[in-house]
């Protein structure tokens, strides 16, 4: 097993030599790293140089009890054939993070635009964060954990005084 995971372990070693990270090899071709917010851009720059040129996705996980947003950047290297996930945590009350658009260009731009709309995370340096999916939406960012869409639909789409729609309120 150790023999097979050599390149994954080496990647974690190479990055640990430069950055203070918590890294683990989950399985063959899957590496997960955690880094603090301040060093995120420097790390992203570094791994892009290592060959992680395909930004597969960016995702946000909302942790309202902790008061944080967790950002995950999923990166694929066509040469090394490893999927590297970089995770970082943001303060939920002041969710601003530096954009990775200078590194992964248009690809990152569109992912950040989506997350800004759905989670309300602001990406500093991304010039176009206009909403993608929702038209005329002025409520809270809908993918946050504290947005109860069931309650919202009940309020907006049904009529409590209508006998036939009472079932939705019971």
């Amino acid at each position, binding site marked *: 097993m150790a023999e097979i995971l050599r390149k994954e372990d080496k990647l974690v070693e190479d990055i640990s030599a430069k950055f203070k990270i918590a890294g683990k090899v989950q399985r063959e071709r899957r590496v997960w790293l955690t880094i603090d917010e301040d060093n995120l851009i420097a790390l992203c720059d570094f791994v892009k140089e290592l060959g992680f040129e395909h930004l597969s996705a960016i995702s946000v996980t909302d942790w309202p009890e902790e008061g944080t947003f967790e950002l995950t950047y*999923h990166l694929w290297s066509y040469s090394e054939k490893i999927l590297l996930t970089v995770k970082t945590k943001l303060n939920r009350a002041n969710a601003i993070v530096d954009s990775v658009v200078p590194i992964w260009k248009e690809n990152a731009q569109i992912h950040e635009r989506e997350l800004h709309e759905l989670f309300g995370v602001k990406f500093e340096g991304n010039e176009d964060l206009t909403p*993608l*999916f929702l038209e005329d939406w002025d409520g809270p960012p809908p993918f946050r954990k504290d947005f109860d869409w069931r309650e919202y639909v009940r309020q907006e789409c049904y009529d409590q005084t209508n006998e036939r729609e009472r079932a939705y309120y019971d």
Partner: protein
Amino acid sequence: MTRQMNEKELITIEHIEPIIPEDTDYNFYFGPAHSGSGNFGVKLKIEGERVKSARADPGYLHRGFEKLMEYRVPVQNAVLSDRVCVLEALNWNLVHAEAVDELTGVGVPQRARYIRVLMAELSRLQSHLIWYGAMCLGLGFDTGFKMAFGYRDYILDLFELITGGRVYPAGYICPGGVRRDLPDGSEDKIKRVLDQTEEMMQKMKDFDNIVFSGRTKGVGILRTEDAIRLGATGPVLRACGVETDVRKDDPYEIYGELDFDIPVREEGDAYARCLIREREMEESIKIIKQILGRIPQGNIREPVKITPPSRVKIPEGEVYVRNELARGEGCAYMRSVGGREPYRVKLRGPDFLHMIPVLEHLLKGSEIADIPAIYWSLNICPADMDR
């Protein structure tokens, strides 16, 4: 009967000044109500016949699956995952099932793995047939459209036989395996459908000169470095000379044991993208034929005895699953905190990148007449972009 104009009238017409418009710029909407656009629009700024700039206008099919899945248990999410992309429901079933399997650590029985890949490849075949039909429709070749959809129906008959649903398999590929076993005689039926599909592929080759090459050669050229920068994956990237396929580079299920090639072309134009897909159909047929002789006996699901969904919990953890869909790379990030429902699901569809940055990049500077050829050569699906 045409009326002869007299001399006086002719002189008057000669003296009319031709109207030369000072400004030929205008805005042009391709979709969302266009018959060939799907539930999606592109706002174009046109100068004469040339597109000055393009801006994608998504959101007509946004259903919020990622959020919906946070409220449902995996058995329900398997059914939801059908709807992520209408045109390749089984492939998205597989993405979801793999994410849950990796979290629970269930050893999926070997028979189920073979059936999963078999269904995923059949789904890729029918998806490519839809693409061919839509491409023909875009190019004004109605016969090709009707034929492709006709031949696709044979594959849908198979889906009905095996999964119970023609388009939506209702979570046939479920966490732990597949929902039910192949019915008796289905192998013979699959072989018959493969023969019919090969018949259609021969027709596609015959139509090539009449329709495809003239309208698509040299149109919408995507260079390799642009393709990687814009996040293109799958056939779009392979048509730009990058040899990559998730089934080979990051093998899942039993793809590592199968023998198939990755078609690659260097041109990067719409024609290359079309040829790649036609070659991929041949490879899919090759894969299915290999599987048919080798499906082992055994269980089709683990655990065999079904526990009530209310008692099943997903172990704590996080995974990122990558699959090769008909359109490109389809991924799912799933996070669990040990509850019945996943805490967070992120779905990454290939068309999110193909329909926004790649399409905007290719349309800029193209001719109006080339828009459908570029648009459909990307094989887009608004459903997996909006999610």
